């Protein structure tokens, strides 16, 4: 299944998507106001019901506007840092990225001259957590994967250096371009390949099974002694190939940056 959010006449509707058509969850009797809420509260019966939805009455997406799948995450996004780095790390490194609002494809990424000097891209895939989780094993964690979502985890490297932590550097307004679709695990028959491009030049390319710590590990680890809220976003971290890794110029005004993943679409943004 593919979940999406569309806007129509100033209102937003969490919905199911298939072949260019959307069916709002509301029309199916589910009154969740966001996909974050849907992921948090959906039960097995509702989930099964959604698999049988008839799209013949769906709305053609040319008549509506698709929005980032989770426009205003109510909690910080959990990022697994250095998760593609080939080292013998025994435990993941988590950090938290504040997101006031997500951007969609086509939006302008602010450059904040005077504040930001080293703007970098990072293609990542987030898992959207299904239902509140408390103390699950890695095997049980599979049940808590609602779906996958593509993001570009924009970072201002100079601010990481200045404040010793990536918090501010990744949390500025407009620093989370996000995909339209949350795609359930059963839609994937091979590991998700992720890529990024700057002005058409391929920069990053890897598959998310190359991480040191996978989503099952993270869900299990993070739910050990705290409730991990359904709807939370946990990000894979980014593979090699950022501007910093490659010693390439950082992003600057007019640059076009794209991130892409199998089944999850492509997000293209221009730097202000």
């Amino acid at each position, binding site marked *: 299944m593919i979940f999406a959010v569309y806007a129509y006449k100033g209102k937003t509707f969490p919905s199911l998507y298939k072949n260019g058509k959307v069916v709002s969850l509301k029309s199916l009797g589910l009154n969740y106001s966001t996909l974050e809420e849907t992921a948090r509260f959906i039960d097995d019966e509702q989930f099964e019901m959604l698999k049988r939805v008839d799209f013949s009455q769906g709305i053609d997406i040319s008549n509506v506007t698709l929005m980032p799948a989770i426009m205003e995450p*109510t*909690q910080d996004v959990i990022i697994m840092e250095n998760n593609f780095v080939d080292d013998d790390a025994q435990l993941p490194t*988590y950090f938290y990225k*504040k997101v006031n609002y997500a951007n969609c494809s086509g939006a302008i990424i602010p450059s904040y001259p005077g504040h930001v000097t080293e703007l970098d891209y990072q293609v990542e895939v987030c898992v959207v957590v299904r239902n509140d989780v408390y*103390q699950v094993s890695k095997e049980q964690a599979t049940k808590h994967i609602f779906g996958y979502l593509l993001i570009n985890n924009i970072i201002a490297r100079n601010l990481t250096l200045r404040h010793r932590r990536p*918090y501010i550097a990744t949390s500025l*307004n407009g620093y989370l371009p996000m995909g339209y679709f949350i795609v359930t695990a059963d839609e994937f028959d091979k590991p998700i390949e992720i890529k990024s491009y700057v002005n058409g030049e391929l920069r990053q390319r890897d598959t998310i099974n190359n991480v040191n710590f996978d989503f099952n590990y993270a869900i299990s680890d993070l739910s050990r*002694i*705290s*409730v991990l809220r359904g709807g939370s976003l946990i990000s894979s971290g980014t593979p090699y190939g950022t501007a910093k890794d490659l010693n390439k110029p950082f992003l600057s005004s007019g640059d076009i940056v794209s991130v892409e993943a199998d089944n999850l679409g492509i997000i293209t943004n221009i730097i202000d």
Partner: protein
Amino acid sequence: MKILYYEINSLHQAGVLSIDGESVYSFKQLGLPWNTIQELCDDKDTNKLKKIKNRLKEISKEGTSLRDVKILSPIPVVRRGIICIGFNFQKHAQEVAVLRGESKDSANISYPIYFSKRNATTTGPGDAIPYVKGYAENLDVGIEVAVIVGQDALNVPKEKVKEYILGYTIANDVCDTRINKVYTQPFLGKSIDGYIPIGPWIVTTDEFEENPLFDLKLTVNGEIRQKGNTRDLVFDIPYIVSELSTNMTLKAGTIIATGSPANIDAGNLEKLLLLPGDIITCEISQIGTLTNVVKEKNDAEVWL
């Protein structure tokens, strides 16, 4: 004014302490619309504090006695994490550096270190701080002044910060030092449920000058553990809020913990570890007292 969230007859209400401090009025009793303090924060009315004040002055009927209510965390559901500032008291930074075997000079910072404690919920006065046997047994506590943002703040200059703050409360930044150490970062060990008691109420900003100075004192079983005054903050509250709001909107209701002072007896590690039954009291001048007890929690045994 002291804004608080409390329970009476199993109902949760947001309200304000009476002028004499003996009783509480819910916002509903005052004819005001907010059910929670988050709703008060979300209200775009810039005169909202004045409104509460006027209604409080006008009301003639008696409120509910403070003794009859259970005070809850003022903001029990956290949106987008709690923003923390590391090493904001020089002496505390030095003691941490020394404990890590680094030089005292490494504690000198030119820019604030910000990070987020990703707790989905906070706890309130009297709530237990969990001591999880076999997993989180190395508890450390830290008293901090918490700033509550009263309306969305973006690119706010230092001189204007006060207008964007709803008020101040007490936060106890609990962490497990072992978990922080094994993960080599202070995130997971700080983000455990029950590790951020706040309260007892939010003292509104109109009671203070632009950059108020607070005395902080934390005791464990009555014995002083931490002591300080916010005049010793490396980066003061207007600076922090202004900088954080630079190109990053601080949404109404955001909690910012501004830093913890040094321990009185930092060298003595044994003495610092907390045990079930320990009573932690955080006291901040002009705000009040926040007391919590460490309590053993056994349900994580499966993870040993």
